[in-house]
């Protein structure tokens, strides 16, 4: 489905709420560990179990991560934010309320920018607020009973809420991927979707263009990008069919079933609870001084969009390249190292986005595990730019060192290693005009028809002759030289 296209005359409107689990070692309001996968109730302390007399104490690490996120998306960090209680009964909610932020969240506003294909998109954020996770109800392994595991209770979450800015499932997925990239890039979330570290809820509605927003239904717990797209597509289709059939959409919370590929209503607005939010009297307002924000900013890793801007500025890259190269920190680092060594940033960018990414994807590797180091890669690009290698021969060299990478601690070592490969494979490009002239003369002699045709004005005949020259040189002839020399020879 393409971006912002109408479906049966309807426009799709999507907003996201994403729960990102923060990477603190201990919980948001207690000192119990947050590690995933422990035996039930072994990582829940008295505070997490809400034993009588226990009280919450804010984990500064969670606040710091919220600040980092706010800075990463250009949001406003509230100097004073308030924790509130969201009251409802559920067996895995130990206190009978969740501590969250309601009226004044820690981060307000901000933007997430990304490319959908080559089209630049901006999704505005409403807010990001800190809250605690609940425990888990375990229905398996019990008959007529439910087990409660409170290990997850009190795990710090940053809930990130967007404006309804997305207009297609593809755009929604691209947003989610970009958000995922940001939170993992700055290290506030491990991004593990299977373990529930990054959970998306999508608010989906449809409308005819120009009409006010339609009634939304919220698809809960989309924990893979694949299901996200499927679920939204199904939901959109369903809503449109309902409307075309003359029904109206009721506000509801729905769940996506990956087995059937369908969304199913969990509860409607009528049975939505009154959460009776009020400021948590156990927690004073959270004050974040400017000095803290400044310190976090100064210690923060360079953000993707800042890095991308720098790539555009210092390396003269197109925006598309810069954005693509900053998909992951390791990719950006690889590129930057490579570009500095080979001094050909655009060539480096092409190779990183093209040949290298393709090979790594096939091998299911990240840039940090690339068999060919940036230093070695730089040597190949140096040899291409100095004319020793043709572009194609460069790929052959890359293939060779991909299989068996020589050691190279610096560019000099890398260059001699690459030169050896070029030598042993006989890939050195022929730039010598004398040798090329001889080949050209021979080719012209053997293909008089083409020569005649060219002289009669048939441009195609020229290409045929170039092909013959390249073939005769076993692909080693410098194509530019061949071009020039052949033209000269033909005009004689």
């Amino acid at each position: 489905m393409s971006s912002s296209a109408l479906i049966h005359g309807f426009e799709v409107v999507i907003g996201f709420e994403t729960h990102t689990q923060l990477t603190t070692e201990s919980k948001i309001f207690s000192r119990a560990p947050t590690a995933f996968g422990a035996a039930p109730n072994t990582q829940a302390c008295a505070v997490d179990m809400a034993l009588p007399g226990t009280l919450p104490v804010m984990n500064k690490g969670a606040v710091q991560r919220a600040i980092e996120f706010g800075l990463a998306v250009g949001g406003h960090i509230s100097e004073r934010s308030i924790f509130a209680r969201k009251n409802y009964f559920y067996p895995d909610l130990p206190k009978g309320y969740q501590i969250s932020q309601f009226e004044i969240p820690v981060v307000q506003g901000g933007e997430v920018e990304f490319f959908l294909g080559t089209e630049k998109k901006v999704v505005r954020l409403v807010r990001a607020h800190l809250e605690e996770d609940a425990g888990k109800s375990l229905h398996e392994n019990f008959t007529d009973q439910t087990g409660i595991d409170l290990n997850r209770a009190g795990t710090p979450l940053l809930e990130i809420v967007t404006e309804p800015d997305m207009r297609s499932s593809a755009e929604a997925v691209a947003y989610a991927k970009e958000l995922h990239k940001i939170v993992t890039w700055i290290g506030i979330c491990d991004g593990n979707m299977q373990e529930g570290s990054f959970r998306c809820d999508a608010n989906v509605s449809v409308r005819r263009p120009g009409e006010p927003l339609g009634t939304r239904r919220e698809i809960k717990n989309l924990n893979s990008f694949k299901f996200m797209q499927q679920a939204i597509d199904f939901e959109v289709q369903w809503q449109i069919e309902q409307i075309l059939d003359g029904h109206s959409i009721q506000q509801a919370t729905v769940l996506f079933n990956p087995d059937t590929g369908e969304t199913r209503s969990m509860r409607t607005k009528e049975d939505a609870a009154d959460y009776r939010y009020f400021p948590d009297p156990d927690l004073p307002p959270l004050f974040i001084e400017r000095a803290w924000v400044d310190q976090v900013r100064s210690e923060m890793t360079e953000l993707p969009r800042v890095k991308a801007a720098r790539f555009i500025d210092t390396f003269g890259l197109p925006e598309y390249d810069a954005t693509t190269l900053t998909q992951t920190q390791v990719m950006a680092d690889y590129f930057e190292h490579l570009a500095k060594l080979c001094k050909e940033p655009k060539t480096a960018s092409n190779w990183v986005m093209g040949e290298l990414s393709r090979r790594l994807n096939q091998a299911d590797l990240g840039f940090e595990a690339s068999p060919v180091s940036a230093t070695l890669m730089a040597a190949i690009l140096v040899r291409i730019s100095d004319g020793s290698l043709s572009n194609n021969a460069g790929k052959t060299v890359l293939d060779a060192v991909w299989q068996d990478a020589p050691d190279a601690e610096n560019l000099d070592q890398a260059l001699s290693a690459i030169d050896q490969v070029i030598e042993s494979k006989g890939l050195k490009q022929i730039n010598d005009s004398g040798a090329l002239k001889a080949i050209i003369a021979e080719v012209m002699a053997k293909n008089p028809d083409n020569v005649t045709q060219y002289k009669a004005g048939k441009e195609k005949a020229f290409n045929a002759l170039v092909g013959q020259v390249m073939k005769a040189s076993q692909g080693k002839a410098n194509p530019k030289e061949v071009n020039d020399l052949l033209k000269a020879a033909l005009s004689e």
Partner: protein
Amino acid sequence: MQDAIQDLSLKALAQALKDQRVSATQVAEHYLGLAQGHLAPKAPNPLNTPQDHSCGAFVSFNPEHTLAAAKASDERIAKGQARALEGVPIAHKDIFVTRDFPTTAGSNMLNHYRSPFDATVVSRLADVGLVNLGKLNCDEFAMGSANENSAWGSVQNPWNRAHIAGGSSGGSAAAVAMGLAPCATGTDTGGSIRQPAAFCGITGIKPTYGRASRYGMIAYASSLDQAGPMARSAEDCALLLSAMCGSDVERDSTSLDLPSEDFSRDLERPISGLKVGIPKEFFGPGLSPDVKARVQEALSQLKAMGAQLVDVELPKTELSIPVYYILAPAEASSNLSRFDGVKFGHRAKDFHNLDEMYRKSRSEGFGQEVQRRIMVGAYVLSHGYYDAYYLQAQKIRRMIANDFQNAFKHCDLIAAPVAPSVAWKLGELNDDPVANYLADIFTLPASLAGLPGMSIPCGLGEQGLPVGLQLMGNYLNESLMLNVAHQYQTQTSWHLAKPGATGVAA
């Protein structure tokens, strides 16, 4: 020696123990012997101690633990390692969680509940050598002003057994007044230390909100709850308060990050020249003549000691009742949500689904007044009513606090009655929750403002029941209040009066 134990101040008792004129074991046995006959009527009595004349002050004992702690104190004393109050017994309001005693908060909901940890206040007091005698009766989850809302039964006023002891720290007040324990802890949300202290003729102080850690104090209304000592005299309270208070920011975010203080430091300072503010709103037509007379006598005494009485205004005093009875139930409705029958506490036996489990467990576990406050609290927080009730109450709460700051521009501390009357009859206001609420009028303002407040005995009113003088100080000004109270107690002997002389035996 033993006969005189009860008459000793904490300081004197600690000295006697330190000098080994009496052992901690003897003192513990002495008090256990007295206290064990005063279990609340419906409290479990595993030791089958006779309860013929019980005032109902205690709800549980663990004699083994108490005697072991006393023995440990004796050993420390023998080694010359006695701490400030080594071997002195104390009893704790059953709202503080304790590892070595059950903790019920006066509720069926927590029948047989045992906490895996001690409240900070409990462990801080143990750290200066105090020995835990047992747990004291209180209103269920500290909700009440008469100690008639305890699942274990009411507490009788030692001065007149047909009357209430006050609440919610009624067990604490009665136990100290009867000499069943030399001192006790209490908690005060809207007057729960000051009012029972006044009704039972003892001294009690609620420090500035945030002074004493709330960790391990079962929450009723988080923004108001504050622990404090209850004892015979201001001097005793100062010693206990010094041990109880101190920063606990690692466990309680509302704890003030201030170093511990010696609240005894100013006790002996003369009070001449001190400006004592008298708020006229506390002396209106609702005040019983007997209470008014005793309080005015106390004020005259302060004047005679050199204090200057100045009129001050606290114009929002009356509003403190609706404000408190919106905010406290609102917080309570949420604080008590954890008692759902899932993890601990009472769970109903027969239920068919989750909702029924919740409903039955909570209906069976909570008493009427607790249920009433949960419902009021849920109502004032609900969608569409929040602004009109909760938000409005918060605004007025700030005005009440501002009124105090204006008053403190003209005086060093404020003196007033603790309650409009002496202790009423048991059962008298049982069916009238509003009348109960109205009786809190004089203690609520300081609670809402987060200010320290204390009650000191200042004579006897109708039917020989004690009257309390309330002192309210500015934030963190406890040592001044204790100074004034102590100076008053050097000139008067109301704090030494014991029930029995004028009281009516049951």
